[in-house]
């Protein structure tokens, strides 16, 4: 039912955008592909502050896609807060930074097949006495931080019953709130939680005892551009089949959250 509605929606939007000229044509004409990334996304699209080099699975995938199209790649800094406007206002041809497929985003953007699936994880400080297990989170007096624009914001707003939700403008903001003790936990996904554990000595991971809320991650583009979408899907299908995708996932140690379809059938 839902899928049928989405299809109708897409048909309705298809006409005008296609008339304006597809991204595939533009990319091939300019021989350059613009890719939106969030440079703070560890393991996905991370700009190493020491080298200023980009690294992460989606950086690798974007470069592979450019190779496949035989064009150059240009990375455009974005964030989850700016994502929708950056894509719809055509600041980039595609957003490639493990974007969680949420209903709100699906209304505005078109997603490729998901390549990662992450649950929600909480990060607290080692010395925090309130939070011992996942069940301690939704309790009176607990302050839960989320970054504005991330997929966690609507989910936690929906799920929390007793704890207080604190929405920070930036992703660093939620870390500061937790580290300074103004908040008890902040919610994040698997790649970011791994970054916290690897780069700080105060962070402690609180994982849900059972599956809490799985979110599939994919690449986003404008709605209605069927040739472009088909071309990227083609690339992804090839990358899945020849193992390129899975190699990239493994290289960045994200195999625990690889989407089931990401592994090659043969």
């Amino acid at each position, binding site marked *: 039912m839902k899928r049928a509605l989405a299809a109708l929606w897409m048909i309705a939007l298809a006409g005008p955008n296609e008339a304006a000229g597809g991204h595939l044509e533009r990319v091939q004409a300019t021989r350059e592909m613009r890719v939106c990334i969030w440079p703070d996304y560890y393991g996905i699209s991370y700009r190493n502050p020491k080298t200023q080099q980009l690294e992460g699975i989606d950086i690798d995938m974007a470069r592979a896609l450019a190779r496949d199209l035989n064009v150059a790649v240009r990375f455009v800094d974005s964030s989850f807060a700016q994502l929708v406007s950056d894509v719809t206002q055509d600041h980039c041809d595609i957003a490639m930074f493990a974007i969680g497929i949420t209903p709100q985003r699906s209304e505005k953007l078109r997603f490729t097949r998901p390549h990662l699936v992450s649950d929600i994880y909480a990060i607290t*400080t*080692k*010395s*925090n*006495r*309130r939070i011992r297990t996942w069940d301690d989170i939704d309790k009176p*007096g607990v*302050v839960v931080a989320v970054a504005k624009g991330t997929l966690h914001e609507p989910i936690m707003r929906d799920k929390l019953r007793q704890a207080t939700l604190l929405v920070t403008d930036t992703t660093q903001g939620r870390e*500061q709130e937790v*580290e*300074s*003790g*103004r908040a*008890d936990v902040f919610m994040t996904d698997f790649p970011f939680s791994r970054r916290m554990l690897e780069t700080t*000595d*105060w962070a402690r991971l609180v994982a849900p005892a059972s599956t809490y809320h799985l979110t599939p991650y994919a690449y986003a583009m404008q709605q209605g551009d069927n040739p472009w979408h088909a071309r990227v899907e083609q690339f992804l299908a090839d990358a899945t089949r020849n193992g390129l995708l899975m190699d990239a996932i493994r290289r960045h140690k994200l195999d625990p959250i690889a989407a089931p379809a990401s592994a090659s059938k043969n």
Partner: protein
Amino acid sequence: MPVQARRHRRAIFSIVTLLVAFSACSATGYTLWRLRAERIQHHFENAAMSARTFENHLTQSFNIIDTGLVQAASDDLGASGLLRLLRHAPYLRSISTLDAAGQIRLSSDPRNQGRAPARGDFLPPAAGPVEVLRVGPLLSGRDFHEARAPGSSAPLSSFIPVTRDVRLPGEHWMTAAASVNADYFLNFYSAHVDPHGGSVDLLRYDGLLLLSTDEHARPGAADASQEILARLATSEIGSFEEQRPGGRTTLTAYRASRAYPFVLVVRLDKEQVLEGWRQEAGRSAGIVGTVLLAALASSGLYFARFERLAREREADQARLRIAAIAFESQEGMVVTDAAYKVLRINKAFTTITGFTPAEVVGGSMNFMKSGLHDSDFYTAIRERLAQSGAWAGEILNRHKDGSIHSHYLTITTVRDDEGHPTHYVGTLTDITERRRIEAERDELNRDFVSFLDNTTDFIYFKDTDSRFRFCSQALAKVTGYRSWRDLTGKHTLDVFPPDTAPIYHGEEIAIIRDGKPLIGKTDPYYDGEGRRGWISSSKWPILDESGKVTGLFGISRDITVHMRSEIDLRIAAIAFESQEGMLITDASNTILRVNRAFTRITGYSEAEAIGQTPRLLRSGHHDRDFYAAMYASLHSTGAWQGEIWNRRKNGEIYPEWMTITTVLDSEGNPSHYVASLTDITERKEAECEIRNLAFYDPLTQLPNRRLLLDRLRHTLATVARNKRHGALLFIDLDNFKTLNDTFGHDMGDLLLQKVAERLVGCIREGDTVARLGGDEFVVLLDDLHPASAEAGTQARIVGDKILATLNIPYDLAGHDYHCTPSIGITLFADHEGESDELMKRADLALYSAKAAGRNTMRFFDPEMQAAVSARAALEKELRIALQQQELRLYYQPQVNEHGAIIGAEALVRWQHPRLGLVTPASFIPLAEETHLIHPLGLWVLETACLQLMKWSAIPTRAHLVVAVNVSVRQFRQPDFVEQVCAVLDRSGADPHKLKLELTESLLLDDLEDVIAKMTALRARGISFALDDFGTGYSSLAYLQRLPLDQLKIDQSFVRDLHVHPNDAVIARSIVALARNLGLSVIAEGVETTLQRNLLAGLGCPAYQGYLFSPPLTREAFEIFAEEWEPESDERD
């Protein structure tokens, strides 16, 4: 001497070994001790270094905080400015500025506004504004807006409040405050000090604990370590070994902040620190120990080898000594050089040859030559010596006295290293005597062989394995050998036929084993032609000098002819003494001979029977014609046989199978009659048994339906005749089919057998358990109570027992199986229906039991069901009554002829909560049936005794005797005497004031037991009265034997005393009887003055009854006794 030397060597070896081991251990110990000290020193340095690092971090963090606060106070930043200050300061929760009143005016967290930090206990203390950072005590809560003093346990979140006064231009002061995130420091310390290995505490300078990595610490409390505060007074930096609560020791380093009022304390657990050292020490000790052990083991082995060599040297010396002694042995010895020149002889040589050393040493060896051997003989000896180095043989030598002696000579060549002969050693034994003995033995052998060749007896010598050494020719002949020599080495079992050989062998084994001879044993044997005959054998063991058996010899002789006649006689005797009775008469029927079987069957001994005629045995069961027919048959056919009933000596009549044969003389006239007789009583019984098998169920051995119906018919008749009740119980196992289906029929059969066993255990002897088939069982009870209610209860009690018994789990071949029965009961009396009808009723009752939910029982008659249930309820209530003290004891006074109260009879009443006062007649019979009489009787006895005890203290009542009724059932208990004695002991009552009343029915029991019990109790002082006297069956003989004290005239005689003259006669007789037996007498049921006076006239001196008083409660009785005037009744 060598032993002493060996001990000395061992002592030195042990001391050296110990010294080496001690040195190695000491060196290792010292090294390990040094390592330990170094490790502790090293970790003290670690702790100090950590303290310095943490202090540095802390001081720098607070420098930044200080700077931030100064900026916040100096510049009017606004709320967003304050938030900016927080952005890279994870050690701060909030920054605020205070107004002049000390309240928060503006804060990065708006919730803090209006709060006032309590700055009274901040450090450093200050009366007015000062330009330093001041630190407050730890507060519980996330920030100022929820700040509280910390409680007894560690708070969920906490912060350290700090303030900073800043002088603004124009002597104007501004204050900023911050809440410091204590967790930030805690995370930092935790990341650097392993929580298992140590802890880090942050103290305020006054000793207040701000935070600790130790989970059990209580931040906010004054730190317990007074030692650190004391040391802080002298030095801001230091380290020491600290004793912690809980017995732990820590290596503690502390360091005060350079600028702020904080002290950092780092503690490392000494045990943890030393853990590594301990492992290392263990390993080192292990290696040193192993090396030391290996060294000790190899030196031990070396020492052992040294000792062995020393022992071998001693052994060599001993061998030399032995050789010297050997030279002086009993054999003559001579040593010559290579040229046969005598060098040395020993004493034995002189004894054997007569030559002394002085005569032969230095001379040639030929001084002994006899001249009887030619020169070739001596040449052969020399050649032999040259070849093989030794010669041995017999040689004839000449003694010094000229006589020729036979010597056995051994010559051995001694060679040098090149193999050339250097000496010859000769050993000489005189064998002249031996030669003589041998000659003698040869002669003996010749004679013995001649004897063996010619004797007709069987002579044999065998070894311990029963193999022939030699034997007589006669034996060879019967065993089929040509010569006796062929038998030598043959085994007994191989020589003789298989049926006789084991007999001989067995005898020989016994002789060899026991060393005892066998004399005159008769054994079978087969002669040369294979005919079986007999031999008489005697065999003896052959012993050597030490008494050990080395073999055996024996002589056997053919005694067949002699044996044949003996056996014939014995067979005849045995034939006559067969299992059948035998009787021989002459022609005139006089008994000549009988056998033992005859005596056994008839009971008449040989002496009693001989001379009599067979008439002796006549039973009288047969008429004249029977005997006439018997004689006719004997005359016509010469024989008779048939079944005949005879009489034994003890009068018993028994059936007999008899065969009579006529023995005719040479003229054909009867000379003797021979009769054989067999007792066929058992055969008759066996026939009976076979018939009975038709009446029993083969699986459970219980009566089957046929026999049950037979018994039921019989019971119906008996019950009608005796005016009693019977009962039929149908029992069916619930869900038996399931068991069969689940576990198979074998398991079902096993269960049925176990159920049958248990059922038999539930019933009295005389009752019947039968199996109808399947899982249907029937119990037939007869001889139940004449009253149907009592009979119903009796049947219910059996039913209850069956329910309880069959409910116990069964062990079915290892399976624990639980099974319940349903029971249908019908009662019957006096031809109530036919047996088929009764079976139907019981079956119907069984169905209603099943319908009522199984594992229960139901009566066919609904009224009976109701009555039985009511009685069961009454029984339950009585049980409760016993527990809840609903029973009361009443006392009816007993009065003597002067009217004085002499005692009372104790009577039990039941104060029923619903029914009111219940008389004993309603519940005593029930109590008897249900065994409740035991606790009830005991309660009565105990209550009466306690009353006696209380009365004994009151002078006017101390003389009262209390009579207590004892039921038959109670008296029958094996420990009745012990029970009564125990009650007396417990209560302390005087036994002389206790009288037990028994009824005559007791006398139907085991009288000896009754007398024994009464005697035992009487020995304690208890007296006995016989209650209801005159109504029962008392034999006067019994009365005399019983240790009684009193007879109690039954009230039935008293009631009609003035109406029926017979009753007066009986009463008078009882009084007279009592007087004659030396017993006292009392009348019960005295209701009128007339009765009293009549009884007094008959000589009865004591009374009990409503004339004086009904049974009274204790209180009423005591009042009655107080108010009673002895002669009052006489005035009526």
